[in-house]
């Protein structure tokens, strides 16, 4: 059983036009930078991307948008991206906006083998249109389905040869959820260590959910809103 790949190009080799892929990260925090670069290089098109955000014009998923590789975005927040806005208004790009907690929980549901979940988010709003609602204990909930994605691409801090992953700080965000949800899960990590080098008590994503792993290179880790304390 070898899960270790040489690099992003190898790990994403079989992602083809029209694929449905999940991409971890919140804003530019914890995004799979190496795989995004490899997808741009490969030029794969007509992608459906499930990702909380769509990057910025020149970084993250924004790089895929620039190359018009994305057919549809499924996200909770897509602000601050001029090319995105242009493609959306011109009709080149489809967008499905869903509440952030719903996005997260639909990933989790896939990872837990639960076909659907109930959430109150969006009840009474346009998000509820066409969806089944149900009352429990006097409160109304929407039924939302588990995601069904061919590939999940996540970024972790540390990973081992068996695919166990540990995330750092708020770079965790959607990564462990998407890691659980992909039929094939590709993890890029800042540090790849041998099996046994990570504390088994501290694993965030057990290796059973991870099919391919590689140590990424040249992480830029761009900061979207650099904010410092007033002295």
């Amino acid at each position, binding site marked *: 059983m070898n899960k270790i790949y040489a690099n992003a190009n190898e790990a994403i080799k079989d992602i083809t036009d029209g694929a449905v892929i999940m991409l971890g990260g*919140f*804003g*530019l*925090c*914890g995004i799979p930078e190496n795989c995004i670069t490899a997808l741009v290089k490969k030029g794969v098109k007509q992608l459906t991307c499930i990702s*909380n955000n769509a990057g910025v014009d020149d970084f993250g998923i924004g790089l895929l948008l620039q190359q018009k590789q994305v057919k549809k975005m499924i*996200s*909770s*927040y*897509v*602000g*601050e991206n001029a090319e995105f*806005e242009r493609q959306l208004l011109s009709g080149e790009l489809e*967008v499905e*906006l869903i*509440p*952030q*907690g*719903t*996005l*997260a*929980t639909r*990933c*989790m549901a896939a990872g837990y083998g639960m076909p659907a979940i109930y*959430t*109150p*988010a*969006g*009840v*009474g*709003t*346009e*998000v509820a249109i066409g969806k089944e609602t149900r009352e429990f204990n006097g409160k109304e909930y929407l039924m939302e389905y588990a995601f069904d994605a061919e590939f999940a691409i996540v970024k972790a*801090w540390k990973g081992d040869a068996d695919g166990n992953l540990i*995330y*750092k*700080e*708020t*770079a*965790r*965000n*959607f*990564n*462990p*959820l998407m890691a659980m949800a992909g039929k094939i899960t590709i993890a890029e990590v800042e540090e790849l260590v041998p099996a046994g080098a990570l504390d088994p008590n501290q694993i*965030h994503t057990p290796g059973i959910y991870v099919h391919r792993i590689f140590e990424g290179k040249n992480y830029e*880790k*761009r*900061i*979207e*809103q*650099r*904010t*410092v*304390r007033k*002295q």
Partner: protein
Amino acid sequence: MALTKEQIAQRIAQELQDGFYVNLGIGIPTLVANYIPEGIDVVLQSENGLLGMGPFPEEGKEDADLINAGKQTITTVPGSAFFDSALSFGMIRAGKVDLTVLGAMEVSDNGNIANWKIPGKMVKGMGGAMDLVASAKNIIVAMMHTNPKGESKLLPNCTLPLTGKHCVKKVVTELAVLDITPEGFRLLERAPGVTVDEIKAKTAGKLIAEGDIPEMKFN
């Protein structure tokens, strides 16, 4: 005189109680963190996966892996914990967060809120707002009483697409503190020097102003 944004935040901070877990939205709500009363412990939740959010970092100490829901660089406080986005919204959905403060474009007198979309203009998305308003036990809206055109944002019905229904409990604006009751907006306090008549004039939704309405107090 109408409150500054800082004073709106300061007034909302008076609602905090010892032991509260609080989620603060972007904009005026973020400023509430600067006015947590002395002697009480409040833990800030950031829905991207952190309990125990601290102030912005010192210059040079920014950490790209440590941001808040507004994508700003932040710090942690002792006792903080990181978790994934599903658990983050799980604790929100389970009612473990005691107070949510967020901005709004419109609030109606039955507690509906609209703050995520203006049809025909760019749609950025609801982010976590719909989850928060659908689940929070106690939601305070921090906003200006009127929009830049001078039109009331406290309405009989929201005109913009809703974020959530029957969820807002209290509104704090530069003019007033109002509870949402089954009868409509109930005026609780006026900004210092602001008259009930001015508040009435700028509130399009149903407004109840009974008895003597006190002025807000600041320390």
